[in-house]
């Protein structure tokens, strides 16, 4: 309404010449300045489109050799042997997916708990402090997480977490083998710490945007606080799911912290105690060592693969959050 009024005023100003002096001239001059300004801002905006295009082009162009040489076999082969020039990305895809899934399984209940506490339970002063701390957690650079993970978390996992797990649950293939510290479990845990703030703070916003009437209706029907919260969570589910996918996107692309704790060995093992390797880590470790062109192209293809996966996850996340805001605005209108 207001926007259209503004638009109308603008068109009026453009069309109707002001009465009096130098009408023709000044209106043309105004038009020129406006057009130049609009053109300049458009140009810079267009650069975002160009940059995105260049990014995709560069990665496809930079991996042609490997795309042609290995084709689809690139993602199904387990062999990564730079000396023989045999490149298969399966161990890295596996490591990326598994470490992110471990993180997701641990992070979802935790972040939901935090989000519910912040949005529904905590008094305002506590919510403010906690929200700030959660945001601070999101602002810590991943290299610092990696440093902490390497020197504090990994020894703790090796001495306190893995021995009892293998003693009591060692019959499960995922807890088999010697407690080594560095490995998939460490990567999953550090990723959990890193994505909980993201999922929690966006879910909190989703919960807070649920119309008050929903809660009042539940209370009026005699629901307990918890039952009301489950309804509110259900109402905000697409937003929460979107937040989870955003967290997943972050976990998939996370490089430094994972590289420093996962052990960096390109093997596929069912046990979470064993070391692994992720797509991002192999880029971080081997990119400057790529001696042959095919090696470099194989690495860039991994970047392309990682890019594609994270883009799909992020697009889904945006779609879900958009759905959420639409339901709410419609609910508000109805």
């Amino acid at each position, binding site marked *: 309404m207001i926007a259209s009024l503004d638009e109308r005023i*603008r068109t009026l100003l453009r069309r109707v010449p002001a009465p009096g002096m130098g009408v023709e001239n000044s209106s043309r001059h105004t038009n020129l300045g406006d057009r130049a300004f609009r053109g300049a801002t458009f140009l810079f905006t267009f650069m975002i489109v160009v940059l995105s295009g260049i990014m995709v082009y*560069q990665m496809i162009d930079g991996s042609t050799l490997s795309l042609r040489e290995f084709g689809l076999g690139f993602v199904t082969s387990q062999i990564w042997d730079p000396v023989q020039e045999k490149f298969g990305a399966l161990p890295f895809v596996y490591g990326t997916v598994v470490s992110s899934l471990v993180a997701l399984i641990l992070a979802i209940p*935790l972040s939901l708990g935090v989000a519910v506490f912040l949005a529904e339970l905590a008094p305002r002063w506590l919510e403010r402090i906690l929200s700030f701390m959660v945001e601070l957690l999101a602002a*810590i650079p991943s290299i610092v997480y990696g*440093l902490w993970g390497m*020197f504090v978390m990994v020894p703790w996992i090796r001495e306190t977490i893995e021995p009892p797990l293998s003693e009591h649950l060692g019959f499960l293939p995922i807890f088999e083998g010697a407690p080594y510290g560095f490995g998939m479990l460490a990567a999953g845990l550090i990723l959990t710490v890193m994505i909980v703030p993201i999922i929690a703070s966006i879910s909190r916003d989703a919960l807070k945007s649920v119309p008050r009437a929903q809660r009042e209706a539940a209370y009026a029907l005699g629901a*307990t606080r918890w*039952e009301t919260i489950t309804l509110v969570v259900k109402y905000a589910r697409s937003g929460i799911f979107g937040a989870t996918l955003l967290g997943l996107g972050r976990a998939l692309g996370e490089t430094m912290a994972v590289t*420093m704790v996962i052990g960096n060995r390109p093997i596929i093992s069912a046990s979470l105690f064993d070391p692994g390797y992720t797509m991002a880590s192999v880029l971080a470790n081997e990119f400057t060592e790529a001696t042959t062109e095919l090696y470099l192209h194989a690495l860039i293809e991994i970047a392309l693969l990682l890019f594609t996966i994270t883009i799909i996850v992020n697009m889904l996340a945006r779609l879900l959050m958009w759905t959420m805001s639409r339901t709410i605005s419609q609910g508000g209108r109805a």
Partner: protein
Amino acid sequence: MSRWYYYKRKAVNGLMLSLSGVAAAVVLVPLLLIFFHTISHGIAIISVDFLTQMPKPVGESGGGMANAIVGTLILIGLGSVVGVPIGVLAGVYLAEFGENRFAHVVRFLTDVLSGVPSIVVGVVAYTIVVLPMKQFSALAGGFALGILMIPTITRTTEEMMRLVPHSFREAGLALGIPQWKTTLRIVLRTALKGIATGIVLSIARIAGETAPLLFTALGNRFWSTDILHPIASLTVFIYDYARAPFEEWNNQAWAAALVLISIITILSLLFRFFSRSRYEGQHS
């Protein structure tokens, strides 16, 4: 029967609410531990020498990271040269002319861009800058960081411009001021504090980036301010020193992490301070 049901509901209610509180407490544990360990390991190392001297060769004790601090500042500067103009002007376009399909595409792209892993941006910067120049350089690192700044700046600029009431624009136009002048001198000026806040936030983000620098700016153990050559940075310094097999270097990595965290905390406190006064002014 119904009494039991009632008790059960009450018990579940109490249990779940306390679990939620427990989750909030658990999540803070790593934060406190990270701060505790970084400060306790780092504080003993940090001194004037550490901040102002160059790294010593392997085997000699002492030494600092002056080149890394300067390198990070240079990289942030180069990143801003790429990221700030594109981000701010794109944000202005989206806020003032952004009701067309093109603008929706750009909004979508910036959202997508913000989700691209930073290591992938590093790979792209490598193929665009490092390969043609046949040289790792600060320029390539700054380019990668600049791309990473764009989404944050674009979004905050657009949001801040939209917060400026329409009556401001109408008042400008009613006085016969051309639209571009109204936008620049009135709307942009009103939103300036918020936009600056967005820039500070994005700087806080890129100051902690490591992955996109590994094969662009590379790192450098010597003093260098030449943007066409490899340059040191705090984050790559931490990475190298953390993996080194010397305990003293590991401790220096903690100290560098403390410096980095202090910088970022100060920046985000600034952000919080500015953005709070801004939003509350709007709402009241």
